[in-house]
């Protein structure tokens, strides 16, 4: 079965790989949230100059594989003079990807807030942006947070794909250690355990956030 001496010896290396995975996840999460919110608001805008680029972005990302998107950014972009390096390419690719899914989630939350809320806000003299920021988004948040959290758990697992563009995160760390130890079972099981720890921690954090927003916004 499992060789425990190998596991004890190499575990710290995998943990450092997991820390990079965490770092990539958090960065992509923040960027992905910004992309998602921007794209959602643009897709809801009346102005076609805002709407159509958002529609195109969301369509493009959701209809192509993440792996190909990462390859285009890492291998393809340098050819047109944009060389971001493996880490930034990975973060950008993941953020653009989760951003498109977040956009649809956020848009759904916004349109589910009753129209009367916007009318009440506007009738008090608020601008469209003020009404969105103070009245609509806080209410949409309650609806958005659970599916958004789901997107982020998927994001953490998807970070393993950046191993293919030479980012030495958890998966690539495991692969490299296999090269020297010839112990794929131990290494991949350890990697799997560490991914499970990360995603479970994210889920728990999410439940906590959900509970807090529910307490704040009783509707």
């Amino acid at each position, binding site marked *: 079965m499992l060789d425990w001496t190998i596991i004890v010896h190499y575990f710290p290396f995998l943990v450092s790989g997991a820390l990079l995975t965490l770092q990539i996840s958090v960065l992509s999460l923040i960027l992905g949230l910004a992309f998602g919110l921007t794209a959602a608001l643009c897709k809801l805008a009346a102005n076609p100059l805002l709407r159509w680029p958002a529609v195109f972005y969301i369509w493009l990302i959701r209809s192509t594989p993440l792996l190909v998107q990462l390859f285009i950014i890492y291998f393809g972009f340098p050819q047109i003079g944009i060389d971001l390096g493996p880490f930034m390419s990975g973060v950008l690719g993941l953020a653009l990807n989760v951003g498109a899914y977040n956009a649809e989630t956020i848009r759904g939350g916004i349109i589910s807030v009753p129209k009367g809320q916007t009318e009440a*806000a506007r009738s008090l003299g*608020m601008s469209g942006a003020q009404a969105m920021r*103070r009245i609509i988004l806080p209410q949409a948040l309650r609806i958005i947070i659970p599916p958004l959290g789901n997107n982020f758990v998927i994001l953490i697992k998807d970070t393993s794909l950046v191993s293919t563009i030479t980012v030495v995160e958890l998966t690539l760390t495991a692969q490299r250690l296999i090269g020297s130890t010839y112990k794929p079972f131990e290494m991949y099981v350890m990697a799997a355990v560490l991914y499970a720890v990360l995603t479970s921690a994210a889920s728990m954090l999410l439940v906590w956030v959900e509970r807090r927003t529910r307490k704040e916004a009783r509707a």
Partner: protein
Amino acid sequence: MTPTSSTRPIDPMLEIRSLQKSYGQLNVLNGVDLKVAPREVLVIIGPSGSGKSTLLRCINHLEEPTGGQIYLEGELINDTGRSRKDFEKHINHIRCQVGMVFQQFNLFPHMTVLENVMEAPLLVLKKDKTTVRDNALELLGKVGLSDKTSAYPSMLSGGQQQRVAIARALAMEPKVMLFDEVTSALDPELVGDVLRVMEDLARDGMTMLVVTHEMGFAEKVGDRVIFMADGVVVEDASPQAMFSNPQERRTRQFLKEVLK
């Protein structure tokens, strides 16, 4: 209040000229002319679909009129000559002066009662927080909800929510208040409290346009009643004349139905 000269006719607070609104083929307003004097309480009655609500919603531009003009103290509200950005600013400024209360209350569920009332004066008028707070507490006292300031809307009855909504609109210190069937969604026993608040407001000299099915309120508080049908003002009279001696056949028919 500024004293008005007795020799000069009082300028209307609100003037509406041949107002039209249509949705595609459907004409909801077919040329409405109306003047509302300062401090006047105008009650608007009529069957559903007669355009009463649309008329109110055109005044604060929640609906865009298809034709005609609306003036607030002589200033054109639906001023299509402005640039888009300028118009947006103009409309927000107009809306600050025109309060509206909705049938479905539309309180902000994620804010307490006090926050609901304070939000717009803070955000839009950029007033100082202590002033806004004091004013909000005073208004909530006026509508009889001093003990509910830290409650959330979902914890209140419909009647209480509607009184918060009135306080919220009043916090902007509007010149005109629009009431769009504000008691229609309430349980019968809660209607009285809301109407009393509106009556107090009328007594304090607020200019009010009230769309309602409460004929008792119209008769008691209204200075003038208009009957609308098919997007036009069919009859315009004092409450006494409207209810005791309606001139138009359609008015008589409507009143016979609702007063039955």
